[in-house]
C-alpha cells in the first residue's frame, strides 16, 4: 500500500509537534518528571533515575527526525523515524496499561508539570495506540508526486486542526469527564 506524500508530511510533522511539546514539558521540570517516571516502576529505581533524563532527549531526537527526514533523507531513514516514534508511543501505552492493571489508578502520568498532576487513565492508552497507528502508517512507502500549493494548505490546515482537536480531547477526557463522573457520585 502506498501513502500520498501530503498525508505523509501531515503525519510526520504532527508527530514531530507532539514529541517536541512532550519533551519541552518534561525538560521544564525534569525533577518532577524523574519522580513520576520512577513511580511508574517499569525499571529498577536506580536505572529509572538515569533513564528519566534520556526520555526527553529521545523525544527531542524523534521530533527532529520526524520533522527533517521527509524532505531530504532516504526513505529508509524516514521509515525508521516514524517507526521509532510509533514504538515510543506504544511503550508509553504499555507502561500506563501495566500500571492500570496493577491497580495504581492514582499514579501521576508525568505528562504535565508538578502543578498539573493528572492520574493515569485508560483513555491515555487508547490515545497513544491510535497516534502510534497513525505514525505507523506514515512509515509506509510514499508515492512520488510533485507537491503544490494545495498540499501546503492540506498540511498546514491539517496540523492546526489536529493540534486544536488534541487539546480539546485532552481537556475533555483528562479534566471534564473525571469531574462529571465524580459529580454523579455526589449525594
Amino acid at each position: 500500500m502506498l501513502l500520498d506524500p501530503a498525508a505523509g508530511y501531515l503525519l510526520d510533522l504532527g508527530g514531530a509537534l507532539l514529541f517536541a511539546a512532550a519533551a519541552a514539558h518534561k525538560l521544564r521540570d525534569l525533577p518532577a518528571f524523574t519522580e513520576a517516571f520512577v513511580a511508574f516502576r517499569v525499571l529498577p529505581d536506580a536505572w529509572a533515575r538515569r533513564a528519566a533524563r534520556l526520555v526527553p532527549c529521545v523525544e527531542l531526537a524523534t521530533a527532529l527526525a520526524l520533522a527533517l527526514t521527509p524532505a531530504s533523507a532516504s526513505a529508509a531513514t524516514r521509515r525508521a523515524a516514524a517507526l521509532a516514534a510509533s514504538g515510543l508511543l506504544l511503550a508509553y501505552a504499555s507502561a500506563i496499561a501495566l500500571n492500570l492493571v496493577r491497580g495504581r489508578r492514582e499514579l501521576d502520568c508525568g505528562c504535565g508539570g508538578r502543578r498539573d498532576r493528572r492520574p493515569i487513565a485508560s483513555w491515555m492508552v487508547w490515545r497513544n495506540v491510535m497516534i502510534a497507528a497513525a505514525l505507523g502508517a506514515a512509515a509506509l512507502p510514499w508515492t512520488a508526486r510533485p507537491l503544490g500549493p494545495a498540499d501546503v494548505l492540506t498540511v498546514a490546515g491539517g496540523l492546526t486542526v489536529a493540534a486544536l482537536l488534541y487539546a480539546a480531547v485532552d481537556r475533555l477526557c483528562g479534566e471534564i469527564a473525571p469531574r462529571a463522573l465524580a459529580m454523579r457520585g455526589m449525594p
Partner: protein
Amino acid sequence: MTALAVSNLTLWLVVIALSVALLAVVRQLGVLHERIAPVGALMLANGLKVGESAPQIAVQDLDGRALSVGAARADERATLLMFVSPTCPVCKALLPVLKSSLTAERHWLDIVLASDGEVADQREFVRAQRLGEFAYIVSAPLGIAYQVSRLPFAALIDSQGVLRARGIVNSREHLESLFEAKRLGFASIQDYFEAAAKKRAA
C-alpha cells in the same frame, strides 16, 4: 480548478474555526464544572455533632511547631480548621478568601490549614500560594478524626474546644456563613430558621 481550490480553502478555514470553537466550549465546560462542582450541603448529617467536644489531636505544623487541635484554649480564641489539598482546584480558588478572613477575623480566630499527602508537595504548595502566614498541618489522622469526606472542608472550634460548625466550604459565602453561625450562636442556618420558627410560634 480554481473553484475547487477556493472551496477547499474555505472548508479548511471553517474546520479550523469549528475546532477553535470546540476547544472554547470544552474550556467553558471546565469553568462551569469548577463553579458548580462539589456544592454540597454545608452540614453533613453523619458523624461528629456540632455543639459537642471536638476530637483532640496533637500534631506538628510544617515548621515543626506542636499544636493541639481541638483542645480548650486559655487565650479565648477560636480555631478554624480548613482542610485543603494542592490537587484541589476549588481549594485554590478559596485561598484568597482565607487570607482575607485571616486578617478580618484576626481578633477572635486562628485559621489552621490541614492537608494530607507528600510533605514535599505541600511545601511547594505553601511556597507557590504564599501560605506562610497560616499554620499548615500535614496529617492523615486529623482528616480521619474530623471525618473529612470532600475538600475544601472546614471545622470551626471555639475556645472551649467545642465544635461549632463543620462542613464543605466552596465559596466566600459558605465560609462567612460559618462565621455568622458562630456570631449568632446557631450551629447552622437550618438551626437558625428552626429557632426563628419556634420563636414565632411561641
